[in-house]
């Protein structure tokens, strides 16, 4: 499988009478986009634009999605949702680089996030640096949470696909090529170099903690192989209302950083063989089965070492440790990527599970760290949700419009795919 990932750099987004890319500007026909996103479960949809350095806050943020379009090769973007479930990951894909669709509106559960486009909170989220096309959707009265989530999820994907389409004929500013040969050839490449793989854990605890692979709920799947390029074409999408700091938005999956970093040294320091996607289910037998299958598949690939990334915290810490221990006991070296819940004072134990074999850990920081987010001139969404989203508390939102809360509330602040630079150390 071979994918050419072509970036079209966008430096501004403006409303216009026609949706198109001209030069490095994305023009958006607001009404056409609203009509495209319509869903009978949603009472209203509006679109706003939030740009870097503006005094703008978006809250509560449900998902962030990068606009992309399939230009050549099988299938379409977000198979199983926006497109049919054809296999993706080969051919040519265009990316509107610098743009993100952000979905917001009445809160679904408790676990949506905050994006500040400037101020002290901005450095904690990568989405303060993107040109955000914010889709504000309000549900029909009485819509249950899981139906609300499904409606928002689909709407966000449609919005990203709609904008991505504008880049179909645009001229790319740069192209990356990812070549993933069939396994027998992959194993023969680069003789003498160690072989590595990636264990990609997907949040699947259920009850609004869900991730989808080609449209299927990951908790109903067994661990399986996936080409890295399939992920770039939107094969994995977020359906999560987990804590904003360490939920992998669809944008994070599309730009899955461990996959990109593994490609960066592929053929030089190791041979990157493949990816296993696995889930994080809640029962012990599910955890045992999934970690057994993961260890089996990784062993089957014949690799020497693997990176394992987690999504969420607490309960999935057990899955992380099971995956680590079972691989290490097979002689496969592991590096784990996680984040921490060490308490607001940083004095507590950071993970809900631990094992001495987990001797190589990368941390994305302590999610309980408290931050003060000053008042913003403009709030897109519903600011009062700051008191109830995970990481906030009764009184987080002050009368002056400022928010005192844990960085847990900030979308992507402690991302466990290693998307950002935040980390923690012992002092």
């Amino acid at each position, binding site marked *: 499988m071979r994918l050419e990932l072509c970036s079209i750099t966008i430096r501004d987004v403006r409303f216009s009478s026609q949706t198109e890319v001209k030069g490095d500007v994305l023009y958006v026909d607001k009404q056409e986009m609203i009509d495209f996103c319509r869903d009978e479960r949603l009472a209203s949809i509006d679109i706003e634009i939030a740009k870097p350095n503006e005094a703008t806050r978006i809250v509560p943020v449900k998902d962030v999605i990068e606009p992309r379009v399939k230009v050549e090769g099988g299938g379409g973007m977000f198979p199983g949702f926006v497109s049919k479930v054809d296999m993706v990951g080969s051919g040519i894909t265009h990316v509107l680089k610098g743009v993100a669709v952000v979905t917001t509106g009445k809160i679904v*559960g*408790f*676990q949506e996030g905050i994006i500040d486009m400037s101020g002290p909170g901005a*450095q904690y989220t990568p989405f303060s640096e993107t040109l955000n096309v914010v889709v504000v959707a309000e549900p029909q009265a009485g819509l*249950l*949470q*899981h139906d609300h989530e499904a409606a928002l999820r689909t709407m966000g994907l449609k919005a990203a696909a709609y904008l991505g389409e504008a880049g179909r004929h645009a001229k790319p500013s740069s192209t990356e090529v990812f070549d993933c040969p069939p396994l027998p050839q992959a194993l023969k490449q680069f003789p003498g170099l160690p072989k590595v793989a990636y264990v990609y854990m997907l949040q699947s*605890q259920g009850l*609004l*903690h869900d991730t989808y692979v080609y449209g299927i709920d990951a908790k109903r799947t067994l661990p399986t192989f996936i080409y890295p390029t399939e992920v770039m074409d939107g094969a994995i999408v977020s359906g999560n*209302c987990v*804590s904003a700091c360490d939920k992998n938005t669809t944008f994070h999956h599309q730009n899955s*950083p*461990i996959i*990109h*970093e*593994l490609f*960066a*040294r592929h053929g030089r*320091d*190791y041979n990157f063989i493949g990816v296993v996607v696995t889930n994080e289910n809640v029962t012990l037998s599910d955890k045992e089965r999934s970690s057994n299958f993961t260890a089996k598949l990784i062993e089957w690939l014949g690799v020497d070492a693997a*990176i394992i990334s987690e999504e969420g*915290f*607490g309960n999935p810490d057990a899955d992380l440790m099971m995956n680590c221990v079972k691989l290490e006991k097979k002689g496969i*070296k592991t*590096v784990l*990527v*996680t984040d*921490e*819940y*060490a*308490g*607001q004072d*940083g004095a507590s*134990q950071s*993970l809900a599970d*631990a094992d*001495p074999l987990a*001797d190589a*850990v*990368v*941390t994305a920081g*302590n*999610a*309980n*760290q408290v931050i003060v987010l000053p008042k913003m001139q403009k709030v897109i969404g519903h600011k009062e949700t700051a008191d109830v*989203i*995970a*990481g*906030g*508390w009764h009184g987080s939102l002050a009368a002056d419009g400022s928010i005192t809360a844990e960085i*847990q509330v900030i979308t992507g602040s402690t991302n466990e795919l*290693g998307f*950002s*630079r935040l*980390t*923690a*150390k*012992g*002092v």
Partner: protein
Amino acid sequence: MSNQKLKVVHYLNQFYGGIGGEDKADHHPEERAGVLGPGMALQAALGADAEVVATVICGDSYFAENIESALHTVITMIKAHAPDIVVTGPAFNAGRYGVACGAVAKAVFEELRVPVVSGMYPENPGVEMYCRYAYIVRTGNSAADMRKAIPAIANLVKALGKKEEVAPETHAYIPQGLRKNYFHTERGAKRAVDMLVAKINAQPFVTEYPMPHFDRVAPNMPIADARKVKIALVTSGGIVPKGNPDHIESSSASRYGKYDLQGVTDLTPESFATAHGGYDPVYANLDADRVLPLDVLREMEKAGEIGSLHRYFYTTVGNGTAVANCAAFAKKIAQELVNDGVHAVILTST
């Protein structure tokens, strides 16, 4: 900060306080104005920035054998001076002295809320027990290291007095076991690949999160006859009276609730809901018995299958809640349950 000198109170044992050796280790807490023993070198090293206004002395044996009353007296003496910073020791590798210096540090940290600087040999038991509450300068294992320890302690006192940022690497103190966030120059995914390559090639690497000792609790023996026991319900699933009267947080809970179940036979959507922010609340809010199985226990109670159900249930939110908070809640809840004659607990999670 004003131009006033930093006020320091110094804690010493009977030996360094000049009272005497082991034969005077039962010396009661005593206070002297100004400096004493190593305090003289400390004052010299602090210079004009700070003044050691008083020294509190206590015998090591007396402190160890009367810890509560000794600590109370020592803290009262220290508090009277309203110090900006407290220095204890240095204790080098003296075990009882180290523990006393640590215990005083903890009490000062918690009650006076001012920083404490000490000095110990890393293997002193006082380090493991109390490093969280003091900046403990790493010293040699005997008083021969006093010449180096005092300037390091003074350096830290001055930095803390000026509210400067301090770190174990730059200020020679033993890490306090606290996790602190910072922005790395590289993103996490790149660091993971770098670490993987080092691990494959058996090159040195430093894990960013050393694994802690994990506290695994072995289950108790089952109850022989449930018909004779009083059972309590405790949950981390966040079930609370509707409206969440105690404002238990949806994540990272700082408190738990205790609510009366007298006369309640079923948890209805009108009266109970979940405060938990970690799962879809629809099903729990429709019927909170799904998380806190009161209805079934009432039936069992009526049928005589269990002795009785305890009048109160305890609840918190186990979602991103620090292990230290959970342990503190559990300690209090367990003690109350024991006091109330509860024999068994059904602990539900989500």
